[in-house]
């Protein structure tokens, strides 16, 4: 069975008690990725709820935005690695990925989202849309560009 480490795309030498397969790429990963997604959920739920958390007048992260972020995260779980969660001064939350291949971010707001994915070699992908309908292709794009697998096809659905 092919098992890859979710961050470094390395072969896992030993046994892996829990495995799961990404439905789109068919890549099987070690179950500890669940822990990474749990950490992301925890970071979303714990994001600053009070104003001026950065000392420069930042807005609190509202429950509505946390709810949107949790919804998007649940969809990403089947598509790519767990993101790092960053609160923003405008009260939004960013999902961030960084690998040797490049950087990606999806910013989640009340009704909108924006994304920016840039592999070191290649042009950046930028876009935006309705927060209730985050295009799964963005997650696939992050996975394909930032965490490529030798066997993974780079064909992506239209963004």
């Amino acid at each position: 069975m092919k098992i890859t480490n979710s961050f470094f795309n390395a072969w896992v030498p030993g046994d892996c008690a829990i495995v799961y397969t990404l439905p789109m790429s068919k890549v099987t990963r070690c179950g500890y990725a669940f822990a990474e997604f749990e950490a992301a959920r925890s970071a979303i739920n714990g994001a600053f709820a009070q104003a001026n958390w950065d000392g420069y007048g930042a807005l609190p992260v509202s429950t509505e935005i946390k709810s949107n972020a949790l919804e998007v995260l649940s969809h990403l779980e089947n598509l790519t690695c767990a993101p790092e969660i960053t609160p923003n001064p405008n009260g939004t939350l960013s999902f961030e990925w960084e690998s040797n291949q490049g950087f990606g971010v999806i910013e989640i707001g009340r009704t909108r989202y924006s994304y920016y994915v840039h592999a070191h070699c290649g042009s950046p992908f930028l876009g935006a849309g309705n927060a209730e309908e985050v295009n799964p292709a963005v997650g696939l794009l992050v996975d394909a560009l930032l965490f490529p697998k030798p066997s993974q096809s780079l064909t992506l659905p239209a963004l």
Partner: protein
Amino acid sequence: MCGIPVAVTNEETVVRALRECHIRKGKLRDNAFRASPGTDEVSVMRHTYLKSDFCKAKAKEIASGDPRNPYVGLAAITVESVRSVGSEVTDSREEYCGHAHISHGMVVPLPAGEPLAPELIKRIRELNGKARLMIDPECNAEGWTGAQIEIVG
């Protein structure tokens, strides 16, 4: 009376006060260079004139109030680097002598709680890539005891 020139030159180093929310795993997060909603102003200090000890004291003042999100250091960047990505640095001594603003040319949208335009996210990412994270090795010390902050050459 402020003795610092109003014109901000490319050779200057400006710094941004950092709290724990601005760093992750030893790296600077992009939220460090984002303006508050309805503005296009990211507050920085003109380090070339104010020097490290003053900047640290001011940064600790900015970061006071939330022990769960304390002062951790400064982000340093040259004005030339800021301008190279298309943003601008202007003196704003009405705040205090030595204060300046980085402007990206795009106001953070209102109503609040909506994401930035992807082009602005890209710009801020580029800016982050040019900035130096200066973690304070002794946050409780009165003066700056870390590595040299001023970016020369």
